[in-house]
């Protein structure tokens, strides 16, 4: 008697996955209202919403968001381009592999964040070290996945293409690069989430604008509402980046069976 009942409860919970987050929000709001959670510790959800409205209307949030977005995009663009070029060179030529791969493996052992003091010495505390940090971090996943993707292209497909007399350029264009594309997307995903992570870290370096600047300022004035708001924006940036890759994948990898069926 009790078993089917329990199952239907599990079923119901599975369909209402939004319930627990909403419940948490309500508890949080309630705790703030009755004074259980002081505003200095954590601002109420309603307060965060209000701050979102006012900072959006004043233009403070959009302008700083734009600056942060620009840093992440520029850093990612530089890092991804470098990773792309290096991955192609190492993947497509043995001499390229012999020269590039050892350097990349050495680079991998150094935690990127540990480089920030050196970058500050080199580039000062302006925009350059922030962008350099993001670029340096996002380079590697693109490089590694592209290089591996190229090297693990099905050799039987390469043989078949060669048997039809394809030139090396045609082989790269029609067989090797499309075959490596799924791996490249994996790398791109890693790089995108790294770019947001490194953005947060880089903006701790004496930023005079951007989301990190907002957070640092809010910390000094104990404005937990602004801090929580910026955390939300960071999360949304990460989500948007993931969505973008999914969109690209759906277009570029339409041939894959799971997407074909969908």
């Amino acid at each position, binding site marked *: 008697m009790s078993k089917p009942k329990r199952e239907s409860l599990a079923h119901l919970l599975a369909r209402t996955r939004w319930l627990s987050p909403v419940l948490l929000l309500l508890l949080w709001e309630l705790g703030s209202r009755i004074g259980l959670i002081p505003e200095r510790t954590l601002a109420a959800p309603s307060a965060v919403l209000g701050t979102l409205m006012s900072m959006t209307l004043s233009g403070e949030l959009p302008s700083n968001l734009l600056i942060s977005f620009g840093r992440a995009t520029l850093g990612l663009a530089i890092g991804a381009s470098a990773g792309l070029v290096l991955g192609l060179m190492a993947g497509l030529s043995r001499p390229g592999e012999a020269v590039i791969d050892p350097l990349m493996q050495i680079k991998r052992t150094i935690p990127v964040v540990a480089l920030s003091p050196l970058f500050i010495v080199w580039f000062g505390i302006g925009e350059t070290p922030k962008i350099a940090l993001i670029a340096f971090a996002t380079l590697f996943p693109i490089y590694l996945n592209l290089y591996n993707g190229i090297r693990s292209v099905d050799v039987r497909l390469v*043989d078949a293409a060669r*048997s*039809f007399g394809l030139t090396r350029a045609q082989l790269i264009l*029609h067989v090797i690069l499309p075959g490596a594309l799924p791996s490249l997307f994996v790398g791109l995903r890693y790089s995108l989430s790294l770019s947001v992570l490194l953005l947060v870290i880089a903006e701790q370096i004496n930023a005079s604008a951007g989301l990190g600047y907002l957070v640092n300022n809010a910390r000094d004035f104990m404005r937990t509402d602004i801090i929580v708001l910026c955390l939300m924006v960071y999360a949304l940036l990460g989500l948007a980046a993931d969505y973008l890759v999914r969109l690209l994948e759906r277009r570029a990898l339409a*041939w894959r069976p799971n997407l*074909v069926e969908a």
Partner: protein
Amino acid sequence: MDARVAASASTEFRPVTTTFAADPRQPDPVVRLRGFTRRFGANVIIDGLDLDIAPGEFVALLGRSGSGKTTLLRTLAGLDDIGGQDVTIPGSRAVVFQDARLLPWKRIWRNVALGLGGSDIRARAEAALREVGLGHRLEAWPLTLSGGEAQRAALARALVREPQLLLLDEPFAALDALTRIKMHELVLSLWRTHRPAVLMVTHDVEEAMALADRLLVLDHGRIVAEERITAERGQRTAVARPLRARLLGHLGVDAPEGAYADLIAFPGAAR
């Protein structure tokens, strides 16, 4: 030569050597190998092999696993470096592999058109696909095709090049029996229309006898037997029985003459 010795054991068929040298009526062969040897380290895969294939000839190459079939086929496909040996292969050749090896990221017609030059490649690919009965699948993704359809597409991709030499590497081995019969019919009709020289690697004796004019048995990198079938296709029932027994003998199976239903009735017959 091994080929001569082995073939002379048969009485019903003219013993022929793999080479058909000084016959003025014969056109120049499209494939010509003399003393071809291929080794990997100390392993000799192909051992002093002579082979001629005439234009339009349908040759089946039988052999057990590890006999060198695949290596020979790769050489004829131009995939391996021949290292300056006496090897003549035609400029236009195409391969159909056991696994269709279509590029999964290209639609079917683009797979067929792969590497083609010219302005009307779409039309040519379409025509080839219609010829193999896939005119309705032009825009499909390869991973959505059945095994038989994929092999048809692979055939179209080979034939659209109008090759002088068509290499078939066990192209029907992965198909179910009914699909295989249809594919045999298709290959024969395509061969009659386009008349490429065909070298079909197989270890299916029945398939070889049904399709080919000439059958070669490869063992340890040498051609150990050669049989020419002069009977027309469709009228081979009489020659098939003794021929099957001989071919199976060359392949290392001591089998009495008879249908497959009886062949496996003697445990231990296979060496």
